[in-house]
């Protein structure tokens, strides 16, 4: 499914109900050409637009789940550019339109598992990160990719208190960044990304806890060492570098064995958390031989 360059006009918007009928896929299956409807698809009814846009962790706008929706409108997302540098052939500051120009935008329905043991199913639109990395030319020797979120205190009220050392930082190993499931998302339900979800462009790594999927990215750097990542800097005992979804490795303060789908109301049940958030078949190979209770 290809779409023209972002931003999408009103004509491109698919009504939510039609969209739901059209898109009952196994998350990730399309990325690998596996296709088809399976038993898993019944668990992949996307969460509603309201769920996805009113229950967010985006500490730049406050630590409450409803804070981003309330305050993120203050963030200017146009103009927007990403500074891409480090070990790349064509470093530079790339404008949003320039990045999107000719980029194959597609729709991906992914499970999203927060480290806080809640989850959603989200219909993203975006492109594979590897397309962008290929475009700027990753130099041999680069092993990791570092990302940074916008830090603009006058527009991001949450950054006025030192909840975390700003700006927010995340990182991936190069093979993780080049994996076809790893996308740069620019929209939801075929609409441009709402500010509270990380407008205009964010990372989505569906087999890792949600905080790895860094929002509102302004900087991407190719490096030859494991980069510093925010939550790991704050609490290394609780958050490792990898943060792959893993029901067998608990967070020190809570169990990761089960999760609750957001949107189920006051009596919502819990469901078992899946290894690599259900994407083990696609990604487990990258971690072969690693002790995931050590490299958590």
């Amino acid at each position: 499914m290809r779409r023209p360059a972002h931003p999408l006009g009103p004509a491109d918007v698919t009504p939510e109900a039609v969209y739901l009928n059209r898109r009952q896929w196994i998350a990730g299956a399309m990325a690998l050409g596996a296709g088809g409807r399976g038993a898993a698809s019944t668990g992949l009814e996307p969460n509603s637009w309201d769920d996805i846009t009113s229950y967010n962790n985006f500490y730049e706008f406050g630590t409450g789940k409803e804070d981003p929706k309330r305050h993120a409108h203050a963030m200017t997302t146009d103009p927007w550019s990403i500074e891409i540098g480090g070990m790349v052939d064509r470093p530079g500051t790339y404008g949003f339109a320039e990045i999107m120009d000719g980029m194959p935008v597609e729709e991906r329905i992914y499970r999203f598992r927060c480290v806080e043991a809640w989850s959603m199913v989200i219909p993203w639109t975006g492109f594979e990160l590897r397309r962008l990395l290929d475009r700027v030319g990753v130099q041999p020797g680069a092993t990791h990719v570092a990302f940074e979120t916008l830090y603009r205190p006058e527009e991001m009220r949450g950054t006025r208190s030192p909840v975390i050392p700003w700006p927010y930082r995340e990182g991936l190993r190069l093979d993780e960044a080049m994996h076809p499931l790893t996308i740069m998302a620019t929209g939801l339900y075929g609409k441009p990304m709402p500010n509270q979800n990380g407008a205009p462009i964010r990372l989505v790594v569906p087999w890792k806890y949600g905080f790895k999927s860094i929002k509102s990215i302004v900087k991407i750097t190719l490096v030859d060492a494991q980069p510093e990542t925010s939550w790991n800097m704050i609490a290394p005992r609780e958050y490792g570098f990898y943060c792959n979804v893993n029901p067998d490795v608990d967070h020190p303060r809570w169990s990761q064995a089960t999760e609750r789908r957001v949107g189920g109301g006051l009596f919502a049940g819990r469901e078992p958390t899946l290894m690599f958030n259900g994407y083990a078949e696609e990604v487990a190979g990258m971690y072969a031989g690693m002790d995931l209770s050590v490299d958590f």
Partner: protein
Amino acid sequence: MQDAINQTLRRVPTWPVYVLGLAPIPWLFWLGLSGGLGPEPIKALEHRYGVLGLQFLLAGLCVTPLRRFAGINAIRFRRALGLVAFAFIAAHLLVWAVLDVQALSRVWADIVKRPYITIGMAGFACLVPLAVTSTDRAVRWLGAPRWRQLHRLTYVAVGLGAVHFVMQAKGLQIAPLVYLGVAGVLLGLRTLPSGKRLA
């Protein structure tokens, strides 16, 4: 001024503290049922009950310093404040165990394995004997000195509750630290020598 306040306070019945104080329990539950607490109402309800419980505990701790340092006598309301706090914390615990964790085995595992939950449970355990001995009969049965001694457990419970709140926060969050600071000040005031009456 003090006298006017005290005279007014004497005329206010204590039952509205129970009625108004407890009203948020069903009200918030109803909001959770009807979507008023957002798409994930369980955590929201748990959090709101917990914070309200801590607020009422702290309000109860204000009674003595108010009398000592400002000459305002609100002691008639202290039992109600304490019992309302207990009700919120019991509701907080129930939401956590029944709606959030949902299995007795996991509840027990969390209490044993997760320090912030161990601490929260210890705080609740301190409150149980206080709620049980909140009646006039219990005061007579224990005798006032022993009753007062027992009810110093409130200090332990407030301290544990505030620490529990700080420990569950992700990152350096201000609000839980403010509660911890207020608890520290209110407890610290009790260590001042009684000669230091300002009022």
